[in-house]
């Protein structure tokens, strides 16, 4: 054998030894990590595993001595060939680990054991100590958190729990023990000045001494382990003489928790202390604390409030409510998924706060209401509000904050650029890293990036639809997904500078308030169905039902709007589609009862995420169900089947999506699940605890119910309770109501269409009864949109007997602002009203309000004199129907009431509504034809915007007329008509002009092209002001002498009775 071979063999031998040692270490590690083993079991197994790591396992044995017990294999033989390592805790020796050979073995360089083997032994000893410590600490925590012992229980008599804790603390946390001793001594001296004499004070002195030893310049000596042991023994001996075991234990537990909170307090307390520190402290606190014990000490209360202020809101009302529900450890949910810049002082924003509080409230109440325990919140990451500032500063874009003070035109011009600017901007590296982490946490689940700004969702400011919420498919490579998230966040940030949101803030006097944008990144609730991702169903729910469809439904019964797929369709009012409405307090009373109604008013489209092209889409429900119906989780609760006019909820098995006619009804959900009950309880609990009616968004993936948003219901302008003025002169009141009143205000009603109940019931011919409906339909098309109300007897739109109510379809009333049904007592009964059932959902989606009037009720005012005696303009409007003038009365309110308008205020909280005559509700708005011609247009942002729409249009029309050369164009006159003339123009309205033309064909051609130029320019101005874009803004109707003589079409508007066109002054040159 050569040297070289020897060397090789030696090397191989060494390598084999290392491998053995490693294997042994792994085995021991596994034993140590096995929590199911008791300590003796663990040590016994280590004893048998350890020899495998040594050179001659067959003759090798191990033993462990710990706490006066020896763990060794059967047939253990003592030997001198051994290696020993002590088990040390806090510098003291508590045992040893020994390995020995039972017979002589070959020696190596410096003895019987390799260096590496000694090292292995040392490592094993250390790991054993570590494991023992960890186990003890867990015991401490466990002991502290266990329920207070029953004093009378014999089991408690020995050994006292506090003794265990003291012993453990002595070993593991001397500082804590010192603190506990000090608290105990203070407690003893305070409560037992007689029994213990001055002993506690003396002992206390010893505790304090090291820390405050007078004016000595040398640092105080720290107490040694032995001193501490002695101190604690004396202290607790003293304590046990005066206090029961249970008392001692409880006190200790409280003090320990208090001390643990101290680090957190320090972090929160420091002004300017960053979110990072607080997050760190909360995390430490969270891992130590018992989550179920009641709030135990005042500092904790203080802390909770400090944290609420820090992360959620500093509004006193909010804090008052929130602190009843939020515990310190709850903040861990937020802070563990919070993305924040270094040194952050940001909050999580309004939307996130609302949701967080609601979730915690439901959680707290789930003990007594088990239904609430099933409510989940999707996984959410929060981006702190001041990350916006960080982002802007990082990109040197702070200048954008001036944006809100620019004119709306500038804002509108610059907005598209701002979006691009922000999308092109770079995210601070820390931000990117955190987002990457968040994405790892989310995986490839589709996401929604939602705004959660500081001002959002505060009372009176819902910002609904002003700030963006963006859906992301979140598919593909990590890089793509990260970019998509950043892109979405940039876009949400940009929406702070959108004309819409700035305008919204301006209108509410919030322009000068500090705004920062927090972000919620939430997992979209749902499942994958074909190429789509969507919840089975989603919707919104309201504590107050402002649209009761039956007198049996109370306002407090609430309202749910439900749709298949993403909830966006339930949130928005829909033009062409209907969500399913239910009242959680009265789930059995549905809006639609006949199969025809049920089918007509069922949702026809669903919003989904298409994961194949990462797009948000609306799909046709019919074809969706045909293709994927079977794959929709919980589909039997969503659709009913309509066969032979029989609509019924059925089992999933019984639905044949190829052949059946499935209708989305949610009947199964209402009847065969706890859904409605759950919603009902959620609304009740949140209303009760948040002390305001709420408005929630939710979604369900077919299994779990998720809460997505929660805010005060009164934040929407539509549902604000109307003010009921008490000082209105009786003669100015047109009606009052006190039954089935909901919230709302209908200002500045200019016309009343009153169908006289007596006159109507006296009509003899069927033709006349039918004609009343037709007349209403015609008037509906003539009067200014949403500026008139309909009042009439009985059941409007009733398809049964025409006698019982005016026969109209929704199209005949769709421009009205409100429908008021009058239940006038007939000889012996009060007729039942329809509550608009026949087109109820149409009314809801168009926000046409409904109010029933009961003129014969006590205390109710019904000004029949006004309604029946003032001038009826029907004969002027529809001369052909003069015969119905006794029945249909059209009242021009300002004309009949000295320029006053009808104001309707409905206050559901008080259950009162009133319609009264008063001056225009807007401060300055007087329709164009009633005000002196003003030469000056005011700045857009100084005015209420709805007035501005017609103001500048009227101004421009005047300028146009001034410059219109009558001679050159052959024009005899120009008139303003339409919505600008009536002062009702909206952001997208045309300027309607009537041009009285009397010239040659060539002149007409030039006139048209001249007007065309104006039209394009005006459209551009309108776009800048409102964001509504169109080809041209002018709608010029050319009329001739013949037209005027024949009063055809637009010519009839000149000198018309209602809404006459206003002549515009042209330059003095005349044809």
């Amino acid at each position: 054998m050569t040297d070289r071979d020897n060397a090789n063999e030696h090397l191989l031998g060494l390598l084999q030894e290392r491998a053995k040692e490693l294997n042994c270490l792994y085995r021991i590690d596994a034993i140590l990590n096995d929590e199911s083993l008791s300590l003796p079991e663990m040590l016994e197994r280590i004893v048998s595993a350890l020899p495998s790591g040594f050179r001659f396992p067959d003759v090798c044995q191990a033993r462990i001595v710990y706490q006066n017990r020896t763990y060794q294999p059967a047939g253990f033989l003592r030997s001198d060939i051994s290696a020993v390592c002590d088990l040390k805790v806090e510098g003291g020796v508590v045992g040893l680990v020994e390995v020995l050979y039972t017979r002589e073995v070959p020696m190596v360089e410096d003895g019987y054991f390799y260096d590496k083997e000694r090292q292995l032994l040392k490592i094993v000893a250390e790991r054993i100590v570590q494991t023992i410590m960890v186990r003890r600490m867990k015991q401490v925590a466990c002991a502290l958190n266990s329920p207070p012992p029953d004093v009378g229980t014999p089991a408690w008599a020995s050994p006292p729990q506090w003794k265990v804790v003291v012993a453990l603390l002595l070993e593991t946390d001397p500082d804590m023990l010192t603190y506990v001793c000090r608290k105990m001594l203070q407690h003893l001296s305070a409560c037992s000045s007689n029994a213990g004499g001055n002993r506690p004070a003396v002992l206390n002195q010893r505790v304090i001494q090291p820390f405050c030893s007078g004016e000595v310049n040398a640092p105080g000596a720290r107490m040694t382990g032995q001193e501490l042991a002695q101190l604690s023994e004396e202290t607790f001996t003293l304590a046990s003489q005066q206090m029961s075991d249970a008392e001692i234990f409880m006190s200790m537990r409280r003090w320990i928790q208090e001390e643990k909170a101290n680090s957190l307090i320090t972090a929160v307390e420091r002004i300017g202390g960053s979110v990072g520190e607080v997050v760190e402290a909360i995390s430490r606190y969270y891992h130590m604390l018992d989550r179920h014990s009641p709030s135990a000490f005042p500092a904790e209360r203080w802390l909770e409030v400090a944290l609420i202020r820090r992360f959620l809101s500093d509004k006193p009302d909010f804090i008052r409510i929130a602190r009843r529900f939020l515990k310190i450890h709850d903040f861990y949910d937020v802070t563990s998924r919070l993305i924040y810049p270094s040194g952050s002082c940001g909050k999580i924003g309004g939307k996130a706060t609302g949701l967080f509080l609601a979730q915690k409230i439901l959680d707290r109440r789930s003990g007594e209401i088990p239904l609430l325990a099933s409510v989940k919140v999707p996984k959410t990451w929060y981006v702190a509000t001041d990350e916006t500032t960080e982002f802007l500063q990082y990109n040197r874009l702070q200048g954008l904050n001036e944006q809100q003070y620019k004119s709306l035109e500038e804002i509108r011009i610059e907005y598209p650029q701002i979006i691009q600017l922000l999308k092109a901007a770079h995210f601070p590296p820390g931000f990117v890293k955190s987002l990457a982490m968040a994405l790892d946490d989310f995986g490839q689940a589709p996401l929604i990036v939602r705004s959660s700004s500081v001002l959002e969702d505060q009372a009176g400011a819902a910002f609904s639809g002003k700030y963006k919420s963006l859906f992301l498919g979140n598919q593909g490579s990590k890089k793509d997904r990260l970019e998509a998230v950043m892109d979405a966040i940039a876009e949400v940030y940009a929406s702070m500078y959108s004309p819409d949101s700035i305008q919204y803030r301006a209108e509410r006097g919030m322009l000068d308030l500090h705004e920062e944008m927090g972000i919620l990144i939430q997992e979209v609730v749902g499942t994958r169905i074909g190429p789509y991702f969507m919840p089975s169903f989603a919707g919104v729910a309201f504590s107050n039902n402002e649209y009761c469809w039956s007198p049996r439904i109370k306002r407090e019964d609430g309202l749910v709007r439900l749709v298949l797929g993403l909830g966006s369709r339930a949130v928005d009012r829909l033009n062409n589609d209907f969500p399913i409405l239910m009242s959680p307090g009265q789930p059995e009373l549905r809006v639609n009862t006949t199969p025809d109604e049920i089918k007509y008013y069922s949702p026809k489209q669903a919003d989904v995420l298409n994961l194949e092209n990462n797009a948000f889409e609306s799909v046709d429900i019919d074809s969706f169900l045909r293709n994927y119906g079977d794959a929709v989780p919980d589909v039997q609760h969503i659709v009913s089947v309509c066969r032979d006019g029989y609509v019924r909820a059925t089992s999933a098995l019984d639905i044949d999506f190829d052949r059946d006619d499935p209708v989305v009804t949610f009947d199964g959900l209402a009847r065969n699940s706890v859904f409605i009950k759950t919603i009902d309880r959620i609304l009740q609990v949140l209303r009760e605890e948040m002390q305001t009616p709420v408005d929630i968004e939710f979604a369900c993936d077919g299994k779990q119910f998720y809460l997505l948003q929660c805010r005060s219901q009164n934040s929407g302008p539509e549902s604000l309770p109307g003010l009921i003025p008490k000082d209105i002169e009786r003669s100015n009141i047109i009606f009052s109501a006190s039954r089935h009143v909901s919230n709302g205000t209908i200002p500045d009603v200019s016309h009343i269409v009153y169908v006289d109940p007596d006159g109507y019931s006296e009509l003899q011919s069927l033709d006349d009864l039918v004609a009343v409906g037709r007349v209403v339909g015609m008037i509906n098309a003539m009067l200014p949109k949403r500026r008139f109300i309909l009042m009439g007897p009985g059941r409007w739109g009733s398809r049964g007997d025409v006698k019982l109510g005016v026969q109209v379809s929704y199209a005949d009333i769709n421009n009205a602002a409100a429908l008021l049904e009058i239940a006038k007592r007939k000889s012996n009964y009060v007729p039942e009203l329809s509550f608009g059932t026949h087109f109820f959902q149409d009314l809801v989606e168009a926000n046409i309000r409904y109010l029933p009037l009961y003129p014969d009720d006590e205390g109710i005012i019904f000004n029949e004199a006004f309604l029946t005696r003032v001038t009826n303009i029907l004969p002027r409007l529809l001369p052909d129907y003069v015969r119905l003038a006794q029945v249909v009365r059209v009242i021009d309110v300002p004309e009949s009431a000295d320029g006053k308008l009808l104001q309707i205020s409905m206050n559901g909280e008080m259950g009162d509504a009133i319609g009264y005559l008063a001056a225009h509700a807007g401060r300055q708005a007087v329709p164009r034809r009633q005000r002196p011609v003003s030469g000056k247009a005011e700045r857009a942002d100084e005015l209420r915007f709805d007035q501005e729409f017609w103001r500048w249009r009227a101004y421009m029309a005047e300028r146009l007329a001034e410059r219109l050369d009558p001679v050159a164009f052959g024009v005899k006159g120009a008139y303003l008509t339409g919505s600008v003339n009536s002062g009702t123009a909206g952001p997208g309205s045309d300027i309607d002009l009537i041009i009285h033309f009397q010239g040659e064909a060539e002149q007409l051609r030039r006139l048209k092209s001249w007007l065309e130029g104006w039209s394009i320019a005006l459209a551009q101005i309108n776009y800048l002001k409102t964001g509504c874009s169109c080809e041209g803004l002018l709608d010029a109707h050319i009329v001739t002498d013949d037209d005027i003589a024949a009063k055809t079409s637009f010519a009839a508007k000149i000198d018309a009775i209602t809404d006459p066109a206003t002549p515009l002054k042209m330059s003095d040159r005349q044809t």
Partner: protein
Amino acid sequence: MERAYNPYTTAQAQFDKVAAIIGIDDGTRDLLRQPLREFHVLIPVHMDDGSTRIFNGFRIQHNDARGPAKGGVRFHPQETVDTVRALSMWMTWKCAIVDIPLGGGKGGVICDPHNLSESEQERLCRGWVRQLSRVMGPCVDVPAPDVMTNAKHMLWMLDEFEVIHGGKYPGFITGKPVGMGGSLGRTEATGYGVIYILREALKDLGIDPRGTTAAIQGFGNVARYAGSLYSSLGGTVVAVSCWDNSAKQSFTIRKKDGLDTAMLIGITNSYGTIDREKALAAGCEVLPGDDWISQDVDILIPAAMESQITADNVGRISKQVRILAEGANGPTTPDADERIKERGIFVIPDFLANAGGVTCSYFEQVQSNTNFFWEKEEVLRRLDGQLTSAYRALYDLALKRKMYMRDAAYVIAINRVVQAVKMRGWVR
């Protein structure tokens, strides 16, 4: 209040007018101008909230000389006895004109189903049957769905009746779903019925359907089946009007060389609105909603709602129009009817034109009574036969007596009932 419009007095006036034409004796007149039997019942219903509400119910059997009374059950919050009386009388005439062996009845409960939960509605249905089960039955009086009642209610009522009488009596009620005693062909019945009769009318007027054109108001069930059967006879549907759900107004789709009903159904959404864009793409024109009435066509088929042809728009009817087939209920107001009569337009009055529905109900009852159910073809074949002979009898009379079709229809119907009461010896 006495001056107010009352459907019952209107129905009586109409009857009196026809009675005068036929020359009915006083006894028969007094018997037929009012219902034979009226039942007014109270129905206590235990409500979901624990309270009890009492509902007023009716069943009125106007006449059963020709067979068991037949007629719907209405749930209506402001139902009046007079409305139910008038409707029961109309049912007698309607069954008589198609010559099916049934009398006329109607019933109802004063209630608004919108204010009742489904279980309350069930208790109400069962309560109604409990109160009336002794005076109704497959051989006595057969209810059917009507305003705000549907198959669901019918099955509850049937079940209660069967519980009380201890047997299976599917012929007690009609309007049941297929498989639960319902009849096939029900969906097509009314629309097809309009065209079976139109086909006969064209024969009588010596017009070849293949050269004819028609405009249809509406694009619901009746209009669709009428349109497709008319096309298969070789006729050309030039225009249909349709409701636009988003614009909240109706519009007319026109294609002078003929609309393809199947194509239109293909581009119609679930609200029954035809897609304008697709219609334009298919070469159709889109016109205002009431333009269907002014088309230069041979045939007008109003198949949407009542009171659509009024004194205001009757003048817009093209001179070319020869036939008005009333697929809807009461599409022509009395004033407009006068003008149409003057113009000499051949009218197929509503209560014959849309009698396909009630005829199919009768077939359902026949099938239920025998517990043997026919194929759809069988149902439609019999429907054709029944309506064709009913029309034939009517036309013969109108021709012989030179009467306006609508008047002739009442005459023939009432006369059949008169004969029945006389043959039974109720009146001598």
